[in-house]
């Protein structure tokens, strides 16, 4: 290495490696993007995921971010009767309609908790209910909105039910226990760690 390069190298600012929390937090965000694409690809709509930035929604302390997505969910011919456990608690989908046809209508919720801690959406129904209550979800809306009324305004929360989406993710629909069967999805057990 010639002298000039050595001098330039001597001017290289020292850096510390990222700490474990920073690395884990960014890894979780990447994982959420990967999982969203898995959901989108499973929809069979052929839509490619778009850049998912900038439409984040804060809901109390439970949800750090809700990212509106394009895409769809499952349409299967199988009828599921038995609840199946949700195995992926890093992300969940809150639907604004009781249908998976015509693409995904609603909002994804992800990244609860502090950076570096495993994001856990322990009870997707409860978290989605917060989105409805605070006006971020309205029936049929393609993605999360923010209805006027201020933080103290509480909006109507419809009956909600959780189905298990492909990838072990919870999908929460407005509807009743029969909604999952109608959609060809197994009911979800969402309250497991």
């Amino acid at each position, binding site marked *: 290495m010639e002298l*000039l*390069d050595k*001098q*330039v*190298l*001597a*001017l*290289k*600012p*020292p*850096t*510390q*490696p*990222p700490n474990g929390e*920073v*690395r884990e*937090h*960014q*890894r979780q*965000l*990447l*994982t959420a*993007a*990967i999982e969203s*694409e*898995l959901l989108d*690809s499973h929809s069979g709509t052929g839509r490619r*995921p778009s*850049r998912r930035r900038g439409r984040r929604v804060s809901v109390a302390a439970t949800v750090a971010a809700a990212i509106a997505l394009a895409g769809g969910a499952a349409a299967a011919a199988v009828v599921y009767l038995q609840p199946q456990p949700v195995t992926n608690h890093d992300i969940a989908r809150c639907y604004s309609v009781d249908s998976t046809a015509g693409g995904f209508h609603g909002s994804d919720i992800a990244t609860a908790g502090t950076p570096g801690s495993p994001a856990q959406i322990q009870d997707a129904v409860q978290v989605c209910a917060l989105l409805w209550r605070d006006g971020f979800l309205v029936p049929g809306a393609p993605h999360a909105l923010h209805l006027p009324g201020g933080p103290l305004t509480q909006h109507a929360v419809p009956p909600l039910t959780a189905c298990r989406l492909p990838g072990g993710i919870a999908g929460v629909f407005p509807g009743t226990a029969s909604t999952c069967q109608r959609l060809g999805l197994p009911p979800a057990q969402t309250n497991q760690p």
Partner: protein
Amino acid sequence: MPITDLELVTASWDDPERFAGLFDRHFDSVYAYCARRIGMGCADDVAGETFRIAFERRRRYDASRLDARPWLLGIAHNIVRNHLRSEGRRSAAHLRLAAEPCDSAEPGSEAAAALDAQRDLALVAETLRSAPLQEVDALLLHVWEGLSYSEVAATLDVPVGTVSSRINRLRRRLRELTDSVEDPPHRRPHDVTR
């Protein structure tokens, strides 16, 4: 035998979760690059964004490259550049550098020699900060990040010849500057006695 980055990326086309392996391999390196260029305060967000963009673009990965680091640094470089532009830093004038020249030393001492070295560094720093940013980017990717000319070219998405020209021009500026201060007044003992 460990699989290559290329194999990881292509495997992630059908099995997206494989892409996380690329994060595990290269996040620290991308983070360090971002930290050097924009500071540690926002290096994590920029490095994370780099991998999310890379994931979305993975099907466009150049299959001739076994090592994904230049590709990732190229994405990071563009985010960094936009970040700096958004802060009005469109030139190398605000380049982050390590060394600051010290103020005083006894003449003839080891400290004085060190002072001379520091002053050389200060001149190099000054030249880097006044040089065209494209030249600085190319040289720093080569010297700081240890990339070959070919890898710098892949990172900056320009021909190798362009990289070579940019680096040579900047080296020439640096050489001219250091040659012009072979015996500067500040190196004479009676001037170094503050």
